């Protein structure tokens, strides 16, 4: 299995709901609290696992606003795991999820340096690295109804711009979407082979030619002649 996410850049409205849902679920999840610094002051900070950024693509008047949520890509060649000296970072063989063992991390920051996507953030209070778990404590929970065994960000997305699934299965939703809409990896030239893909915005639909019946065609012709 190769679990990951597809993010639809065409429909994402940049509402930050995925980031908030992620924080809400994971702050009481397996990686312990995601602590904050000065949460009610003018410069709040803290560990956050899903950052949403907004870009202007193209030049005005032909520019487009694109919202890009980014969390861990669960790379196939995860350099963050290779560089980890303590063995706290690991990639699960069975489903490819990259996780951090909070009991082993010594907070040296090297994995965050190795990650090109900014997916890892140091928790200011525990001094350990935190990252997206792909809600590993949700997706296998048999107490939950089957439809809810998905990451919190995917469940909450109001525009269904986030899809979760197995990229190894060619018939899964994520594989089909990636295939049909030319989903692409971010910064592929670094060679980390990220699993998550991003669907580029679709081109605006062409206006269909209005079909006119034979009778209307005659009427239009007569009107044009009378106008002359």
């Amino acid at each position, binding site marked *: 299995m190769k679990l990951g996410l597809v993010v639809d850049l065409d429909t994402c409205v940049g509402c930050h709901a995925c980031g908030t849902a992620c924080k809400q679920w994971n702050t009481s999840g397996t990686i312990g609290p995601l602590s904050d610094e000065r949460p009610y002051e003018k410069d709040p900070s803290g560990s956050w696992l899903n950052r949403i950024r907004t870009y202007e693509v193209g030049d005005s008047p032909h520019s487009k606003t694109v919202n890009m949520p980014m969390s861990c890509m669960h790379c196939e060649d995860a*350099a963050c795991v290779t560089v980890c000296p303590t063995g706290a970072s690991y990639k699960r063989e069975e489903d490819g999820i990259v996780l951090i063992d909070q009991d082993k991390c010594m907070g040296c920051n090297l994995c965050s340096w190795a990650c090109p996507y900014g997916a890892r953030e140091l928790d200011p209070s525990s*001094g350990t690295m935190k990252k997206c778990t792909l809600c590993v404590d949700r997706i296998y929970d048999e107490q939950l109804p089957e439809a809810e065994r998905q990451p919190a960000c995917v469940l909450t997305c109001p525009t269904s711009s986030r899809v979760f699934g197995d990229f190894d299965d060619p018939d899964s939703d994520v594989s089909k979407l990636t295939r049909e809409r030319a989903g692409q990896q971010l910064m592929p030239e670094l060679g980390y082979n990220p699993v998550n893909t991003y669907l580029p915005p679709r081109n605006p639909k062409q206006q269909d030619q209005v079909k006119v019946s034979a009778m209307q065609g005659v009427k239009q012709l007569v009107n044009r002649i009378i106008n002359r």
Partner: protein
Amino acid sequence: MHPAFSVLIFTVTSGAGYGLLAWLGVGQLLGYTQAQTTDQQIVVGVIAMVLVSIGLLSSTMHLANPKNAWRSFSRFRTSWLSREAVFAILLYPVAALYAAAIFWQWSCINWLAGLSIVLALVTLFSTSMIYASLKTIRQWNTPMVPALFMAYALSSGGLLFLAVSGLFGALNSVLLSTVLGLVLITFALKMVYFFWQGKPQGATIQTATGFSQASVRLLDAGHSAPTFLNREFGYQIAADKLLRLRIVMTIVTFVVPLVIFYCVLQGSAVELLAVAWLMMMVGLLIERWLFFAEARHVVRLYHGDQRT
């Protein structure tokens, strides 16, 4: 990259320590240390290991959760940081045996000297590979980085070896010219690195966002106050300040020690070599600060940088 002071101290002082130990071993193998007494050789070795230890202790200061530091020996097969930790610790018993061999005049002294040189160089190489192996930072991901780290360590360690030998009155002219040549090579290598670094290359905001055919600008970073990513990777410094620091670094690290070398070769007091060493250490701290401050991580592309 944010220059963490503990890491600057670590790489500069332990580098000089490993360099000094390597030179002590080289002096032994080439037969130059015979001019020094046993006590003098042991003093040099102790200075080396004190410098190394100050550096290693300082390196643990930047850990956010140091109680797990002992686990860093466990991933020797994949992680350069782990390899560095293992070799750094392995060096201690070897250096202690080397000291014992000097003191009691063991016959295996040359083997222990050789082993100390190898371990010192391998530890230095491992440290430099922590940086050079990161594909996310193009300024570091080059074979020039390990070459420079070794050259700095052997230059500063060599200069210290000469300074201490000078104070003991056992300065060897062959070693003096060898270290002089090494400082010149290091100087040239650093200049090559500066020119190479100025050439734009690598990932851009286009490859980072996947919009390879259009211009891309950041509209909103999504947070109202700096995050971990901004603090760690967003280090920004004015270009004119960087240029000034580069000039100061070049003068203090290379030009001043080279002038002192010239004076000593012309017959000035050998005590000046200690001044040269101190100047080089200060210069190397500036150099290491620049090494971090000028490194631009690709995550900055997502925060609006057009290229790294």
